[in-house]
Structures are given as C-alpha cells and as structure tokens.
C-alpha cells in the first residue's frame, strides 16, 4: 500500500440513520484506502453497512441518514469539505457509481443513449458526436451487440445482462479515476456474472481505474480483489491483501465466512461446511464489547465488555484480540 499518492483515503467514516424507534449506527469507524488501478472488495453479509458506506462516498445517502468522517481525501483534496455544487462537478466525472439493479437504475421513459450521453455532455461540454463516439467505443469494448441500435432503445427492451453493461458504460463515459460498484452482478444470472466482471476488469486495467467493489460473494472477491475489507455489523473487522486474508484470516468472522464457502479441491474440516450460529446484532448506539462476541466461539468475558482494538501487521489489519500475541509485530492502534 503506497503512502502518499493514494487515490482515495477515508478514515473514521460514520453513518447514522434516524429512524422512528431511535438512531441506527450503520457504518462505524470505517477506513477505506485505494490506489489507482487497484481493486478493493468490500465484503460482508446483507445489512452489514457496506452499501451505506459506498453510497456515502457519492453523497447518495437517504434523507434520514447523516454522515461524518475524520478524513476523506480524494486525489489529495478534501472531499468532505466540498459544497454540494462543487461535489456535483466530481460526481459522474472523477468518481462514478455502478448500481445493483440495472432495471430500476435507468429511467424507463428516457432513451438509453440520452442517459449515457448526459453525463458526458454535462461534464465535458463536448458535442453530442463526441459523446456518441465515446459511448460506442465503450459499448464495443463491453461486447454489446448492435450498439448503435441500443442507444435509441429504452431500458425495458434489453435483457438484464445487457442493461448492466450499459450501466457500466454510463459510469465510465467520463473516464473517472474511481468507480464504486455496489453489487454489480447480484441481479444477473450466474452465467452472465463472470463475463460481466471480466469485461469490467479489462476496462479497469485500460483506464487505470480505482475500483471499490461491494459484494457478499466471496467467489467474486477471490477473482477480482487486490485488497479485501471484511465488514460486520457496520465495522470493518479485517483488511488486507487478497492472498493474506484468504490464506491467513485473523478474525474469527472472516474465518467463518471462508469456511462457509466450498472450494473445489479443498477438503472440508469435519467433512461439512461451516456455519456461523446466531445472527447480526441490532446496530443501535452504545453497544458494549466486540460486536461479533455473541456468535464467536472464542469469545471471552473481556470480549463482551471491551471493544477490541485494531491490530496491524504485515499489511493486514484486524479487529480481534485472539491472535494478537501470536502474530509477530502486531501493534494495536485506533481505526481499521
């Protein structure tokens, strides 16, 4: 992880939701760091806060949400300090988002072409022809058949897989530096998922894009990630390079996740797939202790009362006391 010259440097991100029954703390002290050309996978189960964290980067949180961050720098400049107008100049331009459901993310009564072009026309102030050329180039790279015709069609006329590819084109049309993809293939058929991800990875390499990929699917993580951040109950419980996290997971939750997924060729411990008992705690304010304690087989009383610090060693960070002693050079510090 290079120090200076980070594309995205977020520390201490918090998101709270004001609900009728109280305040939910859905994103808790989250750090996200990304260099150009790198892919960071944000992985966790449903409801862990990963989508909220992603949306907060583009200021797309719902009205009931409020957010804050100790540090939020993009290309060296303070992102949080920008007013809405100046942020809008970045959105779609230097930072873009790919959404989960391509059917509802497109306006049903506007042509796909117009929806693809409008970002370009707004940010580049170029002419329609330039926008069209760019769009057709991207569609070609994304292997969309009959690309010219697609531009005059409406969203409901395309299949899900094609729509998602058009959404990718729409996000990339201004050649952003950072792309945030929120479960981009979850709504697609399994057969189409792999192809779509491959095309996305190719374009990322071409454009040297930083990609934050939010997903719940470890298989996608193993294919796409350079680095992985595992989220649980609003917090990041483990971060590290893909290899390290998969081969030497430090946090019991990460270990549990990996055990849950069958891997061809890897024999199962005890001859069965792992499960994690219990369920995710409610994320209200003022929770004591480690959030994973009620489901962790290694939890002690100390775990239930004192929130564990974040340990770092050799490019990996984790929020658990379990292996603190065993790992050489492990140092506790604040923040994930």
């Amino acid at each position, binding site marked *: 992880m290079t120090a200076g010259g980070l594309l995205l440097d977020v520390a201490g991100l918090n998101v709270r939701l004001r*609900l*009728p*029954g*109280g*305040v*939910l703390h859905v994103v808790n002290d989250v750090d996200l760091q990304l260099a150009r050309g790198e892919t960071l996978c944000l992985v966790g189960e449903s*409801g862990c806060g990963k989508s909220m964290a992603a949306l907060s980067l583009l200021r797309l949180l719902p009205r009931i949400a409020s957010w804050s961050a100790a540090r939020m720098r993009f290309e060296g400049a303070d992102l949080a300090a920008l007013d809405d107008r100046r942020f809008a100049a970045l959105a779609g331009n230097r930072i873009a988002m790919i959404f989960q459901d391509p059917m509802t993310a497109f306006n049903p009564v506007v042509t796909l072409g117009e929806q693809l072009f409008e970002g370009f026309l707004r940010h580049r102030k170029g002419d329609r022809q330039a926008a069209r050329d760019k769009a057709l180039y991207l569609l070609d790279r994304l292997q969309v058949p009959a690309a010219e015709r697609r531009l005059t069609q409406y969203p409901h006329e395309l299949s899900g897989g094609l729509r998602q590819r058009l959404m990718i084109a729409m996000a990339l049309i201004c050649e952003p530096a950072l792309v945030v993809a929120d479960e981009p293939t979850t709504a697609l058929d399994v057969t189409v998922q792999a192809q779509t991800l491959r095309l996305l990875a190719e374009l990322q390499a071409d454009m040297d894009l930083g990609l934050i990929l939010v997903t719940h699917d470890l298989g996608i993580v193993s294919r796409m990630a350079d680095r992985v951040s595992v989220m649980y109950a609003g917090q990041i419980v483990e971060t590290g390079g893909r290899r390290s996290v998969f081969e030497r997971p430090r946090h019991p939750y990460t270990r549990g996740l990996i055990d849950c997924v069958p891997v061809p060729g890897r024999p199962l411990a005890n001859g069965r797939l792992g499960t994690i008992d*219990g*369920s*995710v*705690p*409610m994320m*209200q304010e*003022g*929770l*004591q202790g480690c959030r994973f*304690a*009620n*489901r962790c087989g290694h939890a002690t009383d100390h775990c*239930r009362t004192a929130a564990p610090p974040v340990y770092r060693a050799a490019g990996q960070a984790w929020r658990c006391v379990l292996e603190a002693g065993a790992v050489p050079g492990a140092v506790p510090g604040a923040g994930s």
Partner: protein
Amino acid sequence: MTRIADPAAGTRPGRGEASPEPAALTPNQLILHRAKRHPGLQIGGAVTLLIVLAALLAPWIAPHDPIQQDLLAKLRPPVWDPKGGWDHLFGTDIYGRDFFSRILYGARVSVVIGFFAALISAIVGSAIGILGGYFGGRVDAVVMYLVNVKLALPGLMVALALVSVTGGSILALVLVLAFLFWDRYAIVCRAVTQQIRVQDYVQAAVATGASNSRILLSEVLPNLTSQIIVLMSLEMALAIIVEASLSFLGLGVQPPTPSWGLLIAEGRQFLFFKPSLIVIPGIAIFLLVLAISLLGDGLRDVTATEGKE
C-alpha cells in the same frame, strides 16, 4: 394472520445482547408513535369529534327548536352585531327560526348522512372489489364492467334524477350518495386483493385446502381494513359536500329539516344585505369537511406501510 410489508422487519438480537431495540417497533406501536407526531391527524380528529358530539347532543344543547317559526323575530342579526342578542347567537332567518339551533341540527344531518353513506358504500364497494380481485376471471370482468359503467355515468345528474324520483327522504339520500361513491372502494380493494392473492402464504393456504371464505376473512380483509377506513373518512367528507350541494339545489334534504346546504339556498336571496345567513353555514361545512379530511389524510400517513426502506 400474516401482515403485508411489516414496517418493523428487522433482525432480532442474538444472545448476550443489551435489550432495547430502537428500530424494531411492532406495527401498532409504530402507528401510535407516528400518530403522536402528526398534528394534522390530531387537529382533524379533535375538531371532528367536537362537531360530532355537538351534532349528537344537539337536542340537549340547542337553545331553541330549529323549525319553530317566530315571525316577530325575523332576520335578527347575530350576537357580534350591535343589534344582536345572546338569545339568538347567530341571529334568525326569514321565518324567525333561531339560526344557531338550525346550524346545530344541520350538523346532525351532515354527520349522519355522511357517515352512513360512507359506511354503506364502503361495505358494498369493498365487497365487490374484493370478490373481483380474489376470483379474477369472469367475476372480475363483471366487476370491472360495473365499475366502468358507474364511472361513465355523470354522478351529480344521476343523483339529482334519483332523488327526484324517490323523494327527499333521508334514507333515499343516504342510498343515493352511497351509490355515488362505491366505485372508489371497489377499485382500491380489487387492486390490493389482487396483490395479496399472489403472495406465497395465500398460495400455501389454498394448497392446504383452506376454504375461500376463510382465506378472505383471515388474510385478505385485515390487510385492507386500514385502507378502507382511510377511504371512508375521505369519502365521508365528500359525501357531506355532495349532500350540501344537492340540498342547495333543492334536491336533497327537504325543508323544514335544516341541512347546511339548504340553509345556504334559503339565505341566498339575502346575499347582499345579510351575508351571515350564507357565510355561517358555509364555514360550518368547510370546518367539518376540513377536519374529516385532515383526519383521513392523517390516518393514511400514519398507517402507510413502508415499501421503500
């Protein structure tokens, strides 16, 4: 009974977790919680209650007999006029009848007619809509045909014609008004019932052999009740205005029974030099209809199930 779109659907805590769950309120708690914060609902409910009470207690609180004429006391001004007096709060009309009492009794007419018209049209309309939405096929085709015929008819004209042939009895008026409004319930209930019918738990009930009437009563109806109640309050407000309009045209409540619409018609000739005779009943209609509308809107806001959170 299974509820649709439980707004408080959240995860439950695991073991060893501190107890309060700020976001997990039961549906009824949620409704109460919202109701406490909804000024429209509270104001509307309070004013409606006040007027309904005044209407019900009219025989006891009215200072005079509303149809008692006193030709020596014609067209007395209301109490806020220098020539007015406290014995006739709102003054008197052309026949010397106490206006305040007539307004109070007019409230009875509006409330009773409005309520029963809304109730009857709710029962009939919902039943038709539910049957069409549940059974589909030919039954639904008939239901849609009936609804389309009703929609095509010019409501006010039909109402006028019906009243003219049935006479101006209160019962006839209630039935005519009920006929004017049943289609709204039918449309809403049909749509919701169609949605419910395809839910998994209903399919499961059918598969295990539950009878149609059981499914209708235990699954379909409870999900509709709050919407029907909301509709009822909004339609009641409308019914009151239509009754006033019909009475104004002379084809509603017949004199000497005081209806606010009738009072306005009677006061029309004195529009220029004694406007209080039409201003007061108009304000009365406005206040009652406003209060019921606020109540209905408030109920709708408070019982709306979250689709999007």
